[in-house]
């Protein structure tokens, strides 16, 4: 039984495994980094540690929304690699017993988005599950321009 964190990018509902979440922080004090890829917003200093913040909407090809007080930075942890992603709103956490089904029912994603979000949660229509393993692999490989 996995716990899923549900959030939104613009109008698109998404979710990922709560297991990867280290912390949720406010969207504050992001410092832009020169010559970074287009999906990198900048860096944030959190209790002396530096995190890179990814604009997940830009990476997945979902139209960006203006920042609001509800937008959050979710810091993920994967094998000694911590990274922050910007989401527009965090809805809830949910326990899911059955595995997600295959399927891609939105046209909002680009090829990367389709690659990372190829599964759909069964309990509610239209919620795509983000495959964080693939996401981290993509980041580690560093083939951002390909």
């Amino acid at each position, binding site marked *: 039984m996995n716990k899923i964190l549900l959030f939104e990018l613009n109008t698109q509902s998404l979710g990922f495994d709560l297991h990867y979440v280290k912390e949720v*922080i*406010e969207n504050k004090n992001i410092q832009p980094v020169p010559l970074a890829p287009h999906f990198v917003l900048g860096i944030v200093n959190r209790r002396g540690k530096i995190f890179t913040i990814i604009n997940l909407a830009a990476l997945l090809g979902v139209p960006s929304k203006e920042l609001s007080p509800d937008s959050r930075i979710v810091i993920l942890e994967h094998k000694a690699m911590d990274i922050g992603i910007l989401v527009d709103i*965090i809805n809830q*956490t949910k326990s899911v017993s059955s595995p997600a089904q295959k399927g891609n029912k939105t046209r909002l994603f680009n090829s990367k988005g389709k690659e990372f979000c190829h599964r759909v949660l069964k309990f509610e229509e239209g919620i795509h599950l983000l495959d964080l393993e693939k996401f981290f692999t993509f980041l580690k490989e560093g083939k951002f321009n390909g």
Partner: protein
Amino acid sequence: MRNKLVISFTGVILWMLAVNFLSNLIMDSAWKSQALSIAMGLLVGMIFGIYISNSVSKNLFQLVEATTVVSEGDLRQEIEVKATDEIGKLAASFKTMVLNLRQIVANVKKGSHKVIQSSDEVYDSIKKLSGISEQFASEVEKVIGAAQKQFTLLSQDSLALKSISDSVGKIATMANVASLSASRAVKNSYEGKNAAESAISQIQGVFSQVEKSILLTQGLGNKIIKMSRVMEIITDIARKTDMLSLNATVEASKAGEYGKGFGIVAEEIRYLTEESKSSAKEISLLIEEIQSENAAVKTSIGEGVAGINRGRETMGTLIKNFDHIVDEVTKLGGGFEEISIETNRQAMDSKTIAQAFEELTKFAEANSLAMQKSNEVMGDQKKILEQTKASSQNLMNTAHKLNEAVAKFKVADE
């Protein structure tokens, strides 16, 4: 003649007596003597008779001749009278008669000539007169036409004048009314001025009230701003609590079975924060509304103040205008009074004129009627003239006839 007859008759009788005596002497027989005396008597009687008849009939014959000539109309002859007897007397009187007749006829002839001449002249004169009278009649007809026109024009004028007089009368009453209204207007404008002045003082009171309410709304605005700041803090706290509860949930899930109860608590906290967040949001919205309404009140009060300022200015000008109005209306009232007096006078005058015109119209009517009558009289005159003409013609004819009748008589060499 009677003497002749008596003498001859006496002679005859004496002769008869003498013869009778002589015969009686001579003759032996009575019969013979008687026959002789009768025969002698007859002879002598015859001789005497012839003599007497001759002497009488000669003069008578002459007289008869003269009367025959006279009866044919010749009065020229002179009648000589020699005899002294009755015939002579007759002849003499006949002569006198002829002389008289001659004179009369001559006079008649002269008279009839004169009558013809005169009647000719009269006829001519009548002809001329009738011509003149016809001209006069035509002139009179023209005059009648003119008089009728005059009458109609005058009656129209009279009507027009009457209506003018009426309208002038109306104007006079209107001017009276206007004069009264002007004086009322003076009073009203004074009242208006006073009202405007009191309105200005009232507006000043309103203005101070408005200033107070502006201060009040400003204070309210400040409090609302403070309130919204407090709400921001509340919202921030809610957000932070939300995040903390989320992180607590994350930590609880990582703790596995041991963190399960804590996870539930954290979840509950999260729901509460969601609720407080939404409540704070509602309150914020309400505050925003209050703020915007307060701003609207402020702007409307500002507008009101501007309006009041403008009103104050307008009232100032209004008072000035009222002053002007009072002046003008006072002047106007004086003017209206004069107008009223003048129009009253005018109304009287026009009434008089209208009456005069009415009388004039009556005169014109009478004139027209008189003209028509005179035309009738002219017609009568014409008839009389015609009659006179006819009479003069008759007279002339009669004179001619008389002349013809008298022409039979020859009086002198003509």
